[in-house]
């Protein structure tokens, strides 16, 4: 017996490999759509808040409520509640594609709040100076707010990515597979502690990589 087999007698390494791929696919896909939805939603929240460039307190109230509701529903419940929606969008309610829809709907409002907070950190004086130069609101958003808030936005995306890693573990419920599902299925239900150890270790490594990548980008774009 090789040392690997001695240490981890139960593990099918091909299965672990497939689980890694599934997790990365779910993470990549859901992160992409989370940013596509969450960034504009966060900008919208920022602009419509009281005292901001396009203050619409009532619209802000509605947006804010929707965001809060989505953020307060436990992800596992959200996933089940969203099954019909998922089916309508992707045609299936299971597998990786089936998991991405609830992942995005769970994470986008979370990212939107982080985006809103990051944009609020931009010096009001800089916005005023841009207005004084005759910038339009869309120019202020694309050329002032987003570049000035870039470190905060990257930090927000990093936090969201790490949260998504946690959410993907629940992808197993809809048969999406991934490392989390493996840990639950074999490690916990199947009493195979080596599975638990390996899958959790791989998740830790993934989170570490995401966080240090994010931190590095934040440092690179910080000019203050």
């Amino acid at each position, binding site marked *: 017996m090789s040392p690997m087999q001695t240490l981890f007698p139960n593990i099918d390494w091909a299965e672990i490999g497939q689980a890694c791929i599934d997790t990365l696919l779910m993470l990549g896909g859901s992160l992409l759509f989370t940013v596509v939805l969450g960034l504009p939603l966060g900008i919208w929240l920022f602009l419509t808040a009281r005292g901001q460039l396009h203050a619409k307190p009532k619209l802000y109230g509605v947006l804010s409520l929707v965001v809060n509701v989505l953020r307060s529903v436990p992800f596992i419940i959200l996933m089940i509640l969203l099954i019909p929606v998922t089916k309508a969008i992707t045609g299936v309610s299971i597998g990786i594609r089936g998991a991405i829809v609830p992942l995005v709907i769970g994470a986008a409002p979370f990212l939107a709040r982080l985006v809103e907070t990051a944009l609020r950190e931009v010096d009001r004086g800089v916005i005023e100076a841009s207005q004084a130069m005759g910038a339009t609101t869309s120019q202020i958003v694309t050329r002032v707010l987003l*570049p*000035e808030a870039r470190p905060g936005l990257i930090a927000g995306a990093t936090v969201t990515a790490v949260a998504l890693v946690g959410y993907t573990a629940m992808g197993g419920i809809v048969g999406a597979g991934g490392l989390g599902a493996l840990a639950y299925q074999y490690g916990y239900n199947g009493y195979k502690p080596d599975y638990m150890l390996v899958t959790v270790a791989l998740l830790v490594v993934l989170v570490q990589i995401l966080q240090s990548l994010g931190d590095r980008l934040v440092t690179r774009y910080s000019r203050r």
Partner: protein
Amino acid sequence: MIRFAAASKSYRVDGALVPALEPVDLVIERGEVFGIIGHSGAGKSTMLRLINLLERPTAGRIFVEGNDVTDATGGELRRLRGGIGMIFQHFNLLSSRTVADNVAFPLRIQGNVSDGEITARVDELLELVGLTAHARKYPAQLSGGQKQRVGIARALASRPSILLCDEATSALDPQTTASVLELLGDINRRLGLTIVLITHEMDVIRRVCDRVAVLDAGRVVEMGAVADVFLHPQHPTTRRFVAEADHREGHGPEFSGVAGRLFRLSFRGEATYSPVLSNVVRDTGVEYNLLSGRVDRIKDTPYGQLTLAMNGERLDDALAQIRNAGVDIEEVAR
């Protein structure tokens, strides 16, 4: 030319209208440096922002270069703002862009200037403000004075006819303040730019302004040529500002032991450099005791202001001779 026609501003606070600026009527001529002085909350910031409509007047009209701009929106508003540069107390530079990109920013958002023209204009402006060597740096790598120079270069990028300065030197040390004010004066002379600046320091007014308006609790309480306002302040608020600039707050009591009558003599221009007092003493035999004094410049005009105690039989002759020499005299109550 900028004209305020009964322009006023009120803010709604908890449902009630609170006036920030009472109706103002005044004209700022093309090419002049116009100062607005007031304590914080006096309404000077509001007044400045009415010019480029960062604040809209609650009532009254604003005219810029002869046009009523009060209701300008969209493209018209952007064109108006393109013709008015603005600099700020805290510089308000884009921290994510280099010095050169900050200066290029107003040209880029206008969208009708070619890259070649932008590069040439940026080089020219950085040379004007003496920052050519720092073009590739980020604002965080610069000192306060350098940041304000970037602010000035940026404000001038679109060749405005008006420059608004919002407490532009209040965050700078005295030496840097002097060099930034010198630059502003230089720009005013060389480019014929109209400059409107707000400040709470009379010294800033004295160094660069042609005319000044004194704001107190949202009202213009005094206005005129800087030399007149500075040498003969009328309103108590103005007097306090002038006293602060002269560092002569609370002088009254220390003259109590001095014999004779107290006078304040104000010289301007040529009179500053002629030996008026020694002539008067020789001709009339009065005695004088110099209690305090200052000789300085108001923008480009030399001036002096002396406080004297005077004694002698021919005092009236002496006073007449001083007046004839072009010196203003006020008797100071003791």
